[in-house]
Structure formats: C-alpha cells, structure tokens
C-alpha cells in the first residue's frame, strides 16, 4: 500500500523524442487512477517509468514516501499486468502465479496457500496445472492478474490489459478488475486508450496528450467540465459536438440559430468573437417530446436531419453544417490528436428512442444551453469551465499562478 507522487516527470528518449513533459500526478493511497490518451501520448511510458522499466530523464518519482528514480524494478515492490500478459509459457498456471513468491524464496506451504487464494479469487482453480498456451484470452488475462496480486505489492500497474480481448469479455474483465481493486484496496495505476474503461474504472482519470497532462479529475468532472477542447473531444461516446459560435450580446450564434446563454457563461465569453461551442449529443432533444418547462432552459431551431440511426433506447441523428476556416482547421487538428479521421463537419444528436424523426425530415431540435461549453479556437481552452469542479487542469493552474505575480 502506498501513495505515488510524480513530480515534474520528464522523459526524453535518446533520439531526442520528448515523450513525457513535466507531468505532476499525486496518486492517493488506495486510489484507482487511469492514464488515458490516444496512442503516442506517453501514458505507457509514464507507467513504465513508475515500474522502473524506463529511466526517468528528470523529476522525482516518489512511491510510499521513498524516491525510487534509481531503484531497479524488483526493488520497487510493484506488480504489473502487461498488455500481452507476458506469461511464462514454460511454466504451468500454478508456477506462473507462484513465480514472484519463488523468487522471494518463500517456503512451499506458504506459496501454496497464497497461490490457492489468488486462484480462488480469480476462479482459476481448475486450470492450475495447465500451460498458458492452452488457455483462452480471458483465462490468460486472469493468470496475469493472479501473478500480480499474489505478491503483496504496494501498487498494481495495468498496461492496457483488456485491449487484446473481444468486446464481451472486455466488459466482464473490466467489472472483474474493478471488483478486485475495491476488494484489495491497493493503489492502482491503469493505462488505457479506451475512454469507456477510463470512465468506468477510475476514481480519477489523467488525460494526456503528446506527453502533456491535460486534466486530472474524476470521470464526472471530466465529462461535465472538460478543461479544454482535447479533453472534451476525448471523453464521451459519441463524442462532444463542436460547432462554430459567434458571440452576440447575451448569446451565441450557431450554424443552426442563436442560443441564449446563462449569465455566468455569457460573462465568461464577453468581448470574444468567434468561438467553438461544445455540446454533448444528449444535450440536444427532439423539441416535440419536451414539456414547456424543459423547453425554457435553452433554445430550439429547425433543421433538416441527414441520417438517423435508431438504436431502440435512443436515436442518433446527424446534421451537417458549414464551419468557417479558423474553426475548421482547429477541428481537423483535434481529430488528428484524437487519432480520428478528419470527417465532414456534422453534429451527432442523441434523441429519445421515442422520437419519430425520420431521415430527411425538417425537425425542431432543442439545445440545453446550460450544459454547453465554449472553447477558444486558438488555444482550445475551455472558457466556460467551472474550475471548482474540474479537478486539476495544469494549463489553467499555470495561468492562475501567473495572474497575481
């Protein structure tokens, strides 16, 4: 059991690539923290620096109050589950799990007891004598976890442990990992590129982009108060819609019409001109399904619906729009950062499953303006963020500190 403090961690590879830039993360004792970001964002590198498989270029890595920068992996007492499991193929499942204990020269009876405990917890009892080669993906995954938990490690580290499993199994194992972590109460750092895993598993989530920490917050904070355009686009599925917005007095003009902003948001963007508005798909609704009260909290507009996908419980509707070049450019860059394809500019709207809107219909759509965020198109900064409920946003911390000076 231990807390992890990462202080100004930097990683520069021999070829000059700056993989991790000045990352500060405090992981509380017993906390489940997720490092998430698109490929190449430095999340795995950061994890490997925690475990000691990668040297730290500068900064301090403090685990359980001890600076571990110069310690070998085996002296850090951490356990790790690798992306491809890294089971020892020449050993049985039993010996795979027992491996760390054997290295500690633990006596046979104790090893046996610990291995049996772990295998019971992971329901591996009937597979103990088998070889990893004869196991299914999910079973291998469990063996890898067994090897991690059998030792009383201070911290668990997971490096994209579910990315090799199929969708159904992934869901099950996700719940399994969550249950296990709650039960054992051990500090856990989990790397993933999947925002669903990040949202469902983490006590707090650290979003990284190109080696820079973007925001460190609870899943709810990330979802409701993303610190910048990148986080907003990364968290949520289907992703947040970004549309150009021109500030007009107490509201903003969107490609579909003018939306009146609540006071505090209007104040935050006062004097700005062209912005990017971020609206989550579920903050749109088919106006015909709303009552008077609900209609009051936003604006409605009529728009032709391009494509409709009915999923039963909800309906996705797509509405294309035109964006001015400045916004277009920023959105394209964002797509690239998110590992996506640069697609046509359109908004995705999640409507109630009861909605009867059909393809090609001109429908009345309602926007909930209280949930809307406005981003600076040049910096990507969220101008309407509620900083008290947004966890840690390093970019804003920096600017906050600069103000009084």
């Amino acid at each position, binding site marked *: 059991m231990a807390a992890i403090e990462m202080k100004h961690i930097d990683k520069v590879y021999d070829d000059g690539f700056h993989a991790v830039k000045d990352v500060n993360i405090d992981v509380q004792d017993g906390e489940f923290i997720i490092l998430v970001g698109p490929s190449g964002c430095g999340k795995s590198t950061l994890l490997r620096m925690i*475990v*000691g*498989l990668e040297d730290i270029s500068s900064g301090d890595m403090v685990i359980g109050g001890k600076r571990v920068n110069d310690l*070998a*992996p*085996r002296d850090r007492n*951490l*356990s*790790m589950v*690798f992306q*491809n*499991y*890294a*089971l*020892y*193929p*020449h050993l049985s499942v039993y010996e795979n799990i027992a*491996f*760390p204990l054997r*290295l*500690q020269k633990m006596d046979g009876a104790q090893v046996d007891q610990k291995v049996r405990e772990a295998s019971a917890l992971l329901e591996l009892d009937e597979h103990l004598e088998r*070889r*990893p*080669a*004869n*196991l299914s*993906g999910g079973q*291998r995954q469990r063996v890898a976890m067994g*090897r991690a938990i059998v*030792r009383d490690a201070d911290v668990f580290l997971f490096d994209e442990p579910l990315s*090799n499993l199929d969708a159904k199994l992934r869901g099950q194992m996700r719940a399994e990992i969550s249950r296990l972590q709650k039960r054992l109460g051990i500090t856990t750092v989990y790397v993933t590129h999947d925002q669903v895993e990040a949202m469902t598993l983490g006590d707090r989530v650290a979003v990284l982009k190109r080696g820079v920490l973007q925001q460190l917050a609870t899943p709810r904070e990330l979802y409701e108060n993303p610190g910048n355009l990148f986080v907003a686009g990364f968290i949520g599925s289907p992703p947040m819609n970004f549309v150009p917005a021109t500030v007009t007095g107490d509201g903003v003009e969107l490609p579909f019409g003018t939306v009146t902003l609540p006071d505090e948001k209007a104040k935050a963007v006062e004097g700005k001109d062209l912005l990017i508005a971020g609206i989550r798909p579920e903050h749109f609704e088919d106006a015909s399904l709303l009552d008077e009260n609900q209609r009051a909290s936003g604006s409605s507009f009529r728009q032709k619906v391009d494509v409709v996908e009915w999923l039963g419980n909800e309906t996705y509707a797509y509405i294309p729009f035109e964006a001015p070049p400045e916004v277009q450019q920023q959105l394209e860059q964002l797509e690239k950062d998110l590992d996506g394809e640069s697609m046509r500019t359109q908004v995705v709207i999640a409507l109630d499953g009861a909605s009867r809107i059909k393809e090609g219909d001109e429908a009345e759509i309602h926007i909930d303006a209280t949930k809307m965020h406005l981003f600076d198109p040049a910096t990507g900064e969220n101008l309407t963020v509620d900083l008290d409920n947004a966890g840690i946003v390093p970019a804003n911390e920096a600017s906050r500190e600069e103000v009084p000076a």
Partner: protein
Amino acid sequence: MKGKMGIQHWLGFAVILVWCLLPVVWIISLSFKSEAETTSGSPQFLPKEPTLDNYREILKDSDFTHALINSFGISLIATFLSVVLATLAAYAIARLDFRGKKLVLSLALAIAMFPVVSLVGPLFDMWRTVHLFNTWPGLIIPYMSFTLPLAIWTLAAFFREIPWEMEQAAQVDGATSWQAFRKVIVPLAAPGVFTAAILTFFFAWNEFVLAISLTSTTDARTVPAQMSFFVGPDPFNPPYSQLATASVIVTIPVIVIVLLFQRRIVAGLTSGAVKG
C-alpha cells in the same frame, strides 16, 4: 495434404529410403561378418554366419576404448563450453545495443567459413610450443572456436524471438537480470540451446582432420582418427569388418542423442507466452 497418398508417392519413398539406408545397412551387415568372409573373393550382402566376434574384439581393444572415451570427453566438454559461451554471447547480441555488435557477428561468421585444414599447420606448431599437443584441451579449444559461430547465430535468432516483456515481467516480479535470464529466457530458448548443442556435438564427434593432426597417441586421439589406424597385418586387406564395427559403434551415440532431443527441438516453447 489432400487425399490419400498414391502408389507413386510410396514408390518414391522406397527409392529414397533404399538410396539413403543401403550404405548403412551394408556397414551393419559387414560388422556381423567374420574376417574370413570379408576377405573372400565374392562377398554377399547378408552375413553367411552372423557373428558378434567383431564387437567382442573391438571392445577388448584398449586403443579403441581409449579413443571412445576421448571422443566422449572431448565432444561433451567442447559442446558444454561452446553452448554456455554461445548462450551468453547470443543473449548480449540479441538484447544489448553495443558498439561493434555487427563486427562480432560478421567475424563469427567469417570464422565459421574458414577452412579447418588451413589451421592445422599453425595450430600444430602452437600447441607443441604451449604443450597442448596431444591433450584434450588441444582439441577442445579448436572445436569450440569452430562451433561457436554457428551456435551464436542459432541462439541469437532464438533470443530475438522471445518477447522483451518476458524479461520485464520477470524483473517486475522481483527477479534480478541474471534470474530473469536463467529462469525465463534460457528455458524459453531451450529448443535453440538443444539445436546448438547437437550441432556442436556432431561437429566434435565426427571431426577428423584436427583429431589426426593434433594427436600422437591414444591420450587424446578420438574415434574417427583412431579408425585410420585399423590397418591390420596385411596392408592390401584392411580389416573391413572391424572398421564397420567401429563405425556402427560411433554412430550409436549420435542416433541416441538425436532421438532424445528431437522432440525438444521441434516443440515451439514460446507459444502461449503472449496473445498470438
């Protein structure tokens, strides 16, 4: 493979089988013939009166048994040292990035291509000066240097196939680099280690040129060299049955070793380590 194998396939097999095994069968057959039979004008394929006399006699021959002991000793020691050194060297080559890595590899290959015969002269002089002539080390050292390159190349290829994560996992699990190497990497590279061992053993076991040139007595002479001294009393009638018997006896260990290890070579041990 589709369908049953036709008659022509079996015929082909039979031809190849006869082609390959006929000389072997001939030697075995010879070893059971009495000397009188082999020297008679018109020998036949199978022995008229099969006898074990040749075997009895040759095992009583102290020169031959000495040579057999030398062969075993020298081959096993050369194999062991060669494999141990090659394993360490190949691991370094596969895992570490150091200056001159390419040079080491190409130098090793160059040595393997060097004709053995061209070294006999210089080695003879050298060994005489340093008193290694006609000793076990005098043969073990050149055998090692000729088999190391091949062993290093084979093993380096095996080590490269083993995912890095295996060692990293071991290190995180609390192993030192040496423990990770010994408990995880070497067992995984076992097929490679056995392959290298067998190749090395065969080379040392069958080698003739160095064995005959760098020895003078049965102190260090190996079986292939010793066999050239089976001349018998009549220079025009070499003791064919004796020679054949010696050949059969030296071949037995080779066959036993191959049978023992072939399963280990074939088994791909790394399967199941990582998601395939």
